[in-house]
Structures are given as structure tokens and as C-alpha cells.
């Protein structure tokens, strides 16, 4: 079975999609540059040319509007933000236009647009080069937000997003780019409605996603050695969240820990835990959330170590739920 790195899986999906559909064009800052988007764009420029791969000025706001205009008139644009932080410049076009346009116009103007947003955590990059904004966009109606954790999902979810009639934000963490797993060579899509139970267990439900899924998996192995069987759920879809899968698991385990790479307040973890409460599921111990603290990212690697969730923290926090210490 063939294995592909995460970045290569995205690259393969893009080649496939662009061959199949000549209306797919790409718009974005640095998409034809070796500095920005890792190996995800390899070979596209040579194959499809500058007419279809538009490496734009820095004007994030206007290129986002341009992508909307192209999308509603018959093209199928992919709009790339090489750093998610740069999306703040596009907030009006994303939150006032992409999200509301179709609804305000009576459903007469769906926007088939795929937005690639790349998180670049760590590396002493500081506060404005490392942000994960999925929790922020989750609050805005009208946006589908997806966050694959592995190469298989990256390819299948990317291709599925291109089949959607409405806007999708595809969030990739560049820390995943070198990770690899088995990826079929043919075209396939992953259901954009379902989370995935990646490990069954009876003792606690752990919801995780994107780059933190592998850290959660490492934690799960250690916890198993300590006699705790974790049911691990890869969230995959940030919006709409597949609550059914999560709630079914929590009904069984009566315990929940949510691991998320965003900030704590009003984020993914809070949303999931609130739904567990609303549904009246009796927990045997208080729920736990592991997130970033409500702070901008620091530069120093020493501070980064304390800032970002890691395997040890996931283990420690989980054990607390069993009234145990490491």
C-alpha cells in the first residue's frame, strides 16, 4: 500500500481536481513560491500555468472578494492563505460577504469556494505568524470548517470540499506536512458530516483534531499502560460538529476530555462540553478541556513549550479525571 505525506496528499488532490475541472483556478499569496506552502503546490504551476495559478499581491481583502466573484459566475476557485493570521485582513469579505451573501439574497447566490488556511505553529514565530482561528470562524454562520489530521483525510476531505456548493474553509497545520499514512491513488471523498472514532474504549471519551490528534494518540498508548482505555474521536469537521458521534461515546464512558489547538474562551472545546451538558448526559467526573491559554503565542521556544498542549499535558489532565496523578 502506498504511503503519502500530508503535504503530498493535498498536492495530489489538487492535481486530480484541476485535471478533472478546468474551472478550478487558484488564487493566493505565495502559491507559486517555494517559501510559503511547503510541498503542497509542487508541479501545479508547470502543469496548469499562471492563468490558473494566480500568485497575487498581498491584498488579502480584495483577492478574497475576487474569489467570491469568480465563484458565483462559474469558476471554482481555491483561495489560499499561507498563514491563517493573514485572514484577518479578509474578515469583511469572509464574515460579511462569504457567510451572508447567499442567505441575504434568498438563497440565490451560493458561493462554491474552497479556502485553504494554513496554521504555522511554533518555530519561535510569535503571535502573528502562528494563529489557529478555527474557533473564531466557527462562530460565523454559513461557513463549513474542516480540519484533517492525516494524509488520507486530507486528500478525501479536500476533494469532498470541492464538491460542495457552499464555502468551505480547509484548515491544515503545517506541522502535519511530514506525517504520512496510506493514501489510495484513486479519487475518493470523505464524508464532511462525520467525525471518526479512531480508537474504541470504555473509560473516557477524548475528542481531538488536526495536529493534536497524534499527540492524543501518543497519550492514549501511555494511558492504556496505566489501565485506562480511551475512546478517541477525530473531530475532523469543526462546523457543523458531529455531535451525534461524540454524545454516543460520552453516554458510554461518562467522561470527556476535549483537546483543541485554539484558545480556551468560546472555542471548540467549550462548545462540545456545553452540548454534553445541554443534552443532560450525567458525567462521573467534571469535563476537561485542553486548549491554548487565552494568550497570544510567545516567541521563545521555552515559552512555546508551556503554551502549546503536548502529550504529557494530555496524560496528566486525563489522569486527574480518574483522580490519579502521573
Amino acid at each position, binding site marked *: 500500500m502506498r504511503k503519502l505525506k500530508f503535504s503530498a496528499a493535498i498536492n495530489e488532490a489538487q492535481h486530480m481536481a484541476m485535471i478533472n475541472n478546468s*474551472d478550478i*483556478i487558484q488564487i493566493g499569496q505565495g502559491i507559486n513560491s517555494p517559501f510559503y506552502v511547503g510541498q503542497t503546490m509542487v508541479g501545479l504551476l508547470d502543469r496548469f500555468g499562471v*492563468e490558473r495559478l*494566480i500568485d*497575487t*499581491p498581498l*491584498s488579502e*481583502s*480584495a*483577492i*478574497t*472578494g*475576487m*474569489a*467570491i*466573484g*469568480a*465563484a*458565483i*459566475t*462559474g*469558476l471554482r*476557485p481555491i483561495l489560499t492563505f499561507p498563514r491563517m493570521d493573514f485572514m484577518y485582513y479578509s474578515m*469583511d*469579505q469572509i464574515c*460579511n*460577504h462569504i457567510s451572508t*451573501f*447567499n*442567505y*441575504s*439574497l*434568498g*438563497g*440565490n*447566490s451560493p458561493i462554491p469556494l474552497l479556502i485553504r488556511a494554513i496554521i504555522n505553529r511554533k518555530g519561535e514565530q510569535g503571535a502573528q505568524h502562528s494563529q489557529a482561528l478555527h474557533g473564531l470562524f466557527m462562530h460565523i*454562520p*454559513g461557513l463549513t470548517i474542516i480540519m484533517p489530521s492525516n494524509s488520507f483525510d486530507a486528500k478525501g476531505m479536500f476533494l469532498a470540499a470541492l464538491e460542495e456548493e*457552499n464555502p468551505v474553509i480547509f484548515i491544515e497545520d503545517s506541522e502535519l506536512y511530514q506525517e504520512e499514512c496510506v493514501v489510495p491513488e484513486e479519487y475518493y471523498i470523505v464524508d464532511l458530516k462525520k467525525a471518526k472514532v479512531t480508537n474504541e474504549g470504555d473509560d473516557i471519551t477524548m475528542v481531538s483534531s488536526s495536529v493534536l490528534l497524534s499527540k492524543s494518540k501518543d497519550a492514549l498508548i501511555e494511558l492504556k499502560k496505566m489501565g485506562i482505555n480511551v475512546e478517541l474521536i477525530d473531530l475532523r469537521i469543526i462546523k457543523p460538529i458531529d455531535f451525534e458521534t461524540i454524545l454516543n461515546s460520552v453516554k458510554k464512558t461518562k467522561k470527556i476530555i476535549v483537546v483543541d489547538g485554539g484558545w480556551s474562551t468560546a472555542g471548540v472545546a467549550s462548545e462540545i462540553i456545553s452540548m454534553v451538558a445541554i443534552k443532560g448526559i450525567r458525567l462521573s467526573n467534571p469535563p476537561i478541556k485542553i486548549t491554548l491559554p487565552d494568550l497570544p503565542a510567545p516567541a521563545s521556544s521555552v515559552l512555546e513549550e508551556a503554551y502549546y498542549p503536548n502529550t504529557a499535558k494530555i496524560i496528566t489532565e486525563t489522569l486527574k479525571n480518574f483522580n490519579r496523578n502521573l
Partner: protein
Amino acid sequence: MIKILEKMLLIRIFEEMVAENIKKGEIKCPVHLSIGQEGISATICEFLNDKDYVFSTHRNHGHYLAKGGNLNRLMAEIYCKETGCSNGKGGSMHVIDRSVNFMGSSAIVSGTIPIAVGAALTIKRHNTNQVSVAFFGDGATDEGIFYESINLSVLYNLPVIFVCENNDFATHLPNRMRQSNISVTERINGFKINSKNVDGNNPIEIYEVAGEMIERARKNCAPSLLECTTYRWLSHAGYWQDLDVGYRRKEDVEFWMNKCPIKYLYNYLKLDQKIDENQFELMKTEIRKKVTDAVLFARNSRSPNILNLDKGL
């Protein structure tokens, strides 16, 4: 030219009736009237066919009607009814009629300018000989995205026409208090875009320049900017004249009411013996009847069904 006169009258009478029905309390959503500015959209749309794209703003009724959008459905949308062009979800500021490629409007100033540029990108890639037109006011030129959009259109050589209806006010604040250089055309000269300033209340002058710009866009995929100097007779929103709130003088409003584009074109055509007083009155009567019917249609339509609240996202 007669068609331009007719379109201007349609917009004028439509908006006068909207104003009346705001006064009566029948229309409740925020409404931005363009009375006095009709010459611009009516003349420019004369060069457009149903395939050409138009994008608009909060002050959109003139653009919608000039492009040939459905009259009844516009009125019903202003009444926020189910039969409205946006099914009552948008109100006056969010209107669309895709059957004539009137592609929608935004209530965020400058919001649809880059979207019009994107439509032009599709035109160029599909090689379909259409043009894309963005209407906006001078307030939009206060925004950075306007300049970014101009740059993209020139950089990629796209068939888009930027039409700035410069009525001097961003709600209450005049150009001189917002801009270091009040001329939009001068400000964007550095982008190497074809541009011109015209008297926005003179349909003949607009006609000559717009025709040439649209031709250039169709033939050479070249963008242009047309700055039309004009004035809105009424307040930023609603039916008032804003004479008592301190930002404009009665004399200014009277000056511009004398420069009425409808009066100008009517006199021009009458002198040319293309129309006489009887024909003009008949034209008004017929339009008044159509607009009255539209009001009845809107009034008698049902409000949206709450079961449709979550439809169309």
C-alpha cells in the same frame, strides 16, 4: 435615448412611491434612495445586455431597475415579503435578479467592488465577451479594498467598469472632510487605469464616455473607472431632505434639483423633437401605473414563512 429617459422615470417614480410608503409606515427596513442620481445607472445600463454582470450597494434600486430587474419582486423585497427577490431575507439593501445578471448588493460600503473584479476574471477565462460593472459611491473610495481592486483589475487586465457615483457624502461627511484629494479620478491615476470624470446629471455626457469604456472592456478586456459627479436629493436613508441637521445647505439641494437629469434629458429630446409634452406625460402615467401595481403586489404578498428561516444559507 428615449429608453434612458424612461428608465430614469421608472427609478424616480419607484423611489418616490417607496418614500411615500416609508412615510406611511408600510416600509420599515432601512431604505437608501437615489433620487437625483438616476442618470448614471439608466445611461450605463443602456450598453449592457442580460449577460453582463452588475454589482451594487445599499443604494441599489436604480441599478437593479436599470439592469432590467423584476419590478414587483424589488418592491416586495423592500416590503420584506416572501415574493421579494431575496424572499424577504434581505430587505432593500440585499437585492438580486440573476435572470438579468444583476448579481447582488452589499450593505458594507465597497463590499461588492472586488466581487465584480472576480466576475470579470470568469469572463476573461471563459472568453465570453461580457463586462462586469461595479456601482458604488464616493464613500467606497475611503476604503482600502477599493484601491486593491483597481490594482487587481489593471494587473490582470479584466473587463470591469468601476462606476463611482460621487454624491459628495458618506452619510453626512463631505469629501473635503474625508479625502486629501477629493477627485477620485486624480487619486487613482497612479494605477494606470483608464478613467474619466463626467457630469453625472448629464446623460448625454455619460453616454459618450460609458459607451467607449464598455466597448474597450468588451474588446480588449480593459478596465475603466467612470467618476460621475452627482448629488442625492434626499437624506442618506429614509425620505427626509436633511436640511436641518447641519451638513448641507438648502441652496445646495436646490441647485442640484435644478440640475435634474430627467429634466435635462427631456429638454434635450424635446428640442430634438424626439418627444413632446403629451408623450412625456403619457410615459409618466404608464410608469406610475406599473409601480402602483408593484406596491399592490408587495402589499398583498405574504410575509416569509418562519419554516423557511433556515433555508438558503
